[in-house]
């Protein structure tokens, strides 16, 4: 006998559970999770019945990412999305630890739209800054080799001495 699937059940079937590295659970619609190419592949091969572990992403980051994916699965007007994206990034870039982890997670989960958004934002944070300013802001050590440094100065020394 054929089972009759109610609309409610159908909706329910589209939900998937994601588990962060610190065991936080998130129940989201399949189409939201699908924004991540990696999760989509997992869902395609393993189904959505059992929770999917997202081992390299912590709860707070996964939460934020899913918030992004949910917003971006609604098909809202472009202007609305642009405004939302800007606010989302404004908030993210204030905390450089969070921003870093968000960048890694979007890259790891392969959410291209978010990778692009973060790349633009990050590029904007680096633009028109001297290497020293960049190092200080992002806590980076200057570990250039002597050869590298020499090559840069002989070829592109001019870029550091605007007159």
């Amino acid at each position, binding site marked *: 006998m054929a089972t009759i699937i109610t609309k409610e059940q159908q909706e329910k079937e589209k939900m998937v559970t994601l588990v962060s590295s610190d065991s936080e659970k998130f129940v989201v619609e399949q189409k939201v999770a699908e924004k991540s190419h990696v999760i989509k592949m997992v869902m395609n091969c393993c189904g959505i019945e059992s929770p999917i572990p997202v081992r390299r992403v912590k709860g707070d980051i996964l939460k934020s990412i899913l918030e992004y994916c949910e917003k971006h699965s609604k098909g809202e007007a472009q202007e609305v999305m642009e405004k939302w994206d800007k606010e989302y990034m404004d908030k993210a870039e204030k905390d450089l630890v969070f921003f870093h982890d968000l960048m890694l997670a979007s890259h790891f989960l392969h959410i291209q739209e978010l990778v692009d958004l973060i790349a633009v934002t990050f590029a904007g944070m*680096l633009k028109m800054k001297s290497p020293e300013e960049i190092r200080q802001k992002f806590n980076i*050590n200057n570990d*250039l080799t002597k050869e590298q440094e020499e090559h840069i100065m002989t070829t592109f020394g001019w870029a550091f001495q605007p007159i």
Partner: protein
Amino acid sequence: MTDYAHLPSDMLQEIIKYFSFSDYIRFSTVCSHWYDVAKERRHSLRKQLPWLIFFYADSPKFFDPLEEKVYQIEIPELRKRHCAGSSHGWLITIDLDLTINLLNLFSKAQIKLPSLAYDAYDVRAKDYYECFWSKSPEEKPFWRSSDLTWTVINIDFFLQDVIWYDGAFYVVGSESQLYRIEIGMDNKRIYVGKIYESESDAENDPDWNGLGSLNTVNFMVFKLDQEENKFIELQSINGHCLFLGFNHAMVIPTTVMEDKIKDNIIYFTDGHSDEDDLHHLYGYNDSGDVFGACLPTVGAKTGRPGIPLNQPMTVDRGRYPGSKAGPDGCGVCCSDFDGPAMKERCSQFVTWRMQ
């Protein structure tokens, strides 16, 4: 752990594509990993505005209109050479022995061009103006990267400017007449129209007191309506920037730029500079004052339709001879300094300038 220095290479590559050339260089010197990533650059850099160039012996100065900074770049390769023009990051240089080379400013790559007939060339080497302002019939040789020699196009008027557009040369004569020259068996010349009616004969103009003392007083911009073959004077170039100099005139829609840049601006280089006493035997082009080099177009109004990107633009260099502002400003676009389209760009560059 937060480690910006060791972000995945793929991720950093995504970032590089939003950089201007100078941003890219500064990025590459932050740390060793970023240096490696920059070296393996996979995407071309962001579209950027051309730079203006001013010659000071072998250390040209560059003005980046976006950052509004001036850079001085020492180019030993320019020693004992004359620079005759530029395009897309390439300079056309002429040696003392009249060898013509394309020199890439940043990669320092060089491409030797076929040599040009001595007499045709000599005029230019001795005195660019003489050639430029000569009333005698002129030759306009051009070269394509696939060609072995220059093609000479004879013209019986003297040239104001040449651009390459839509598979043909558009040539502006001294009487502001525009011709289209289709390159083929007979290099057919078609009269397009007159850009504007001259109010005064240039050489009888009292303001015209010979070479080297000309001032830019105004700009007039005309757009060619190709269907009607008519020129329309524009009151503004909203949404665009115009670059004039010792290069092909470039109109750039500011909307295609990732950065918010000022529009409705004409960038040009002024041929006059009191501090310039570096005229080389073979005529290093004199240099201009960069800080006076941009001004909004006259009579700018808002809300006027912009000029479509692919329309040929004819730029009237003013009713006064020399308001072209000296043959010294070169537009340099560095975004493709080692791109695959190099050859193609070179050929454009040459064809546009060898007049």
